[in-house]
């Protein structure tokens, strides 16, 4: 069980950090928040990379390559679209 309690500790503490940080996010930015957390959790690409590159067997490699492609879609897509949205939120400017 030892190798379970360690990761569980990290999980629970990260959950608390997440709760604290997310409750402070401005409701104005809830849509970008979703694409941002989506991009961040696409860190699962690192697991996919190891699966695709370790070449244990053909099936694992193929599944890994598909996993890399779909996670990478969120990495690139998530960060780009979040920035595209955030760029639009601007303060009042003096108009003439």
């Amino acid at each position, binding site marked *: 069980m030892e*190798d*379970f309690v360690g*990761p569980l500790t*990290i*999980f629970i503490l*990260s959950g608390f*950090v*997440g709760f604290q*940080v*997310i409750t402070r996010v*401005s*409701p*104005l*930015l809830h*849509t*970008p*928040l*979703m*694409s*941002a*957390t*989506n*991009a*961040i*959790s*696409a*860190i699962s*690409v*690192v*697991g*996919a*990379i190891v699966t*695709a*590159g370790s*070449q244990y*067997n053909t099936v694992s490699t193929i*599944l*890994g390559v598909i*996993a*890399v*492609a*779909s996670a*990478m*879609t969120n*990495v690139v*897509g*998530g*960060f*780009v679209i*979040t*920035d*595209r*949205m*955030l*760029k*639009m*939120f*601007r303060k*009042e*400017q003096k108009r003439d």
Partner: protein
Amino acid sequence: MDQHLLQWAYLFAAILFIFGLKGLSSPRTARRGMFLAAIGMFIAVVGTLFDREIVGFQGIIIGMIIGSAVGLGIAVWTPMTAMPQRTALSHAFGALAVTLVGVSEYYRHGAGLSAVTMGAIGFEVFLGALTVTGSLIAFGKLQELMSGSPVTYPGQNVSNIALLAAMAGLLVSLIVSPGMSVLFYLLVALALVFGVLLVLPIGAADMPVVIALLNSYAGLAASVSGFVIHNNILIIAGALDGASGFILSILMCRAMNRSITNVLFGAFGVAATSVASADEVYGGKVKSATAEEIAMLFDAARRVVIVPGYGMAVSQAQHAVRDLAHMLEERGITVEFAVHPVAGRMPGHMNVLLAEANIPYEKIKEMDEINPTFTQVDVAIVIGANDVVNPVARTDPKSPIAGMPILDVDKARTVVVVKRSLSPGFAGIPNPLFAAGNTLMFFHDGRKAILELIGALKAA
């Protein structure tokens, strides 16, 4: 790369992720924050490429090129009105990656898995697979590839619970004897079916809750996958994503005064027992106005509040709304925007559309902030919103939306409602606001209505 060095890189990336999310507390710091998070991602990915276990790069490169191209294409070409669909689709992609890694781990180790790891893999593919199909159904409903109305049948909840129990049984059997691969693939298949069944009965207007919930599941699945492959950054990032989705779904439910179980299993709007019929509420009391008549209201107005709803997104009216706001401001009128938390199809949907139309964010007010001030509003313009401004929520405890917090537009001196017809909103009930003495109905498509109003103001 040294495996220890890689762990340091992951830790650094995790810290940058948290700073990134922290930046989202204000629009001023948000872009910088997300830039930090992107650097964290870059460090983690590049570091992983040096992992000792990796022996071939061909597959990785192919996957990365395809994924980057697809992701970039979606990110650049998705219109802001289609953001809910894009989000649903991205949950499907994320969950697919996690599920495939889980399946691959099982395929590789099979019978040799420890009980803890088997349990984690089982949980990972269960959450991942249901999120894949659930998100695809949500995407289909939002993209209008399929009907947005709830699909219900007798015994729905009972059969869903039976399915859930069957999957729990499979998971327990696998933990006891991990070598039974048939059970594993059956679990994956049932979870895929379960995802479909979970989202089918949920109507399009409840999508803000469902998207947030799927967001949470996708994050949790990623986190569990970190338990399986012993990777801390996956646990951390997944937990952050899971917490975010969970908080958003709670906020959305609260904004509708409903519980999560009610949203998921209630099939809202199907058996809505309408207390008052449309004829009773509207009969002869609805006043319709022309653009010219409405334009005259602004002659004496000093404060105008615009309330956007999903109808504004559908008719792409946000740019016309901005032009109208500018025009009113040039006459010295204060113009603000009031956004209900569940307006639109995902959390924050309206804010993004208003920002796209270059409306400064200081003018966008949340419900709690603007509600006490509606009595001092001369004209409230409601564009394509219905249930979120229905005063019945306050007055009739038997109504299906009883107790739902609403925008108190009915307290404004005059209310202008832009709407194509008197058809009910998602809750399926008539809205007495439309028949109120201080309400003028402007029956028209959202964008065309605003353009006509602008024309009338110019002519006056």
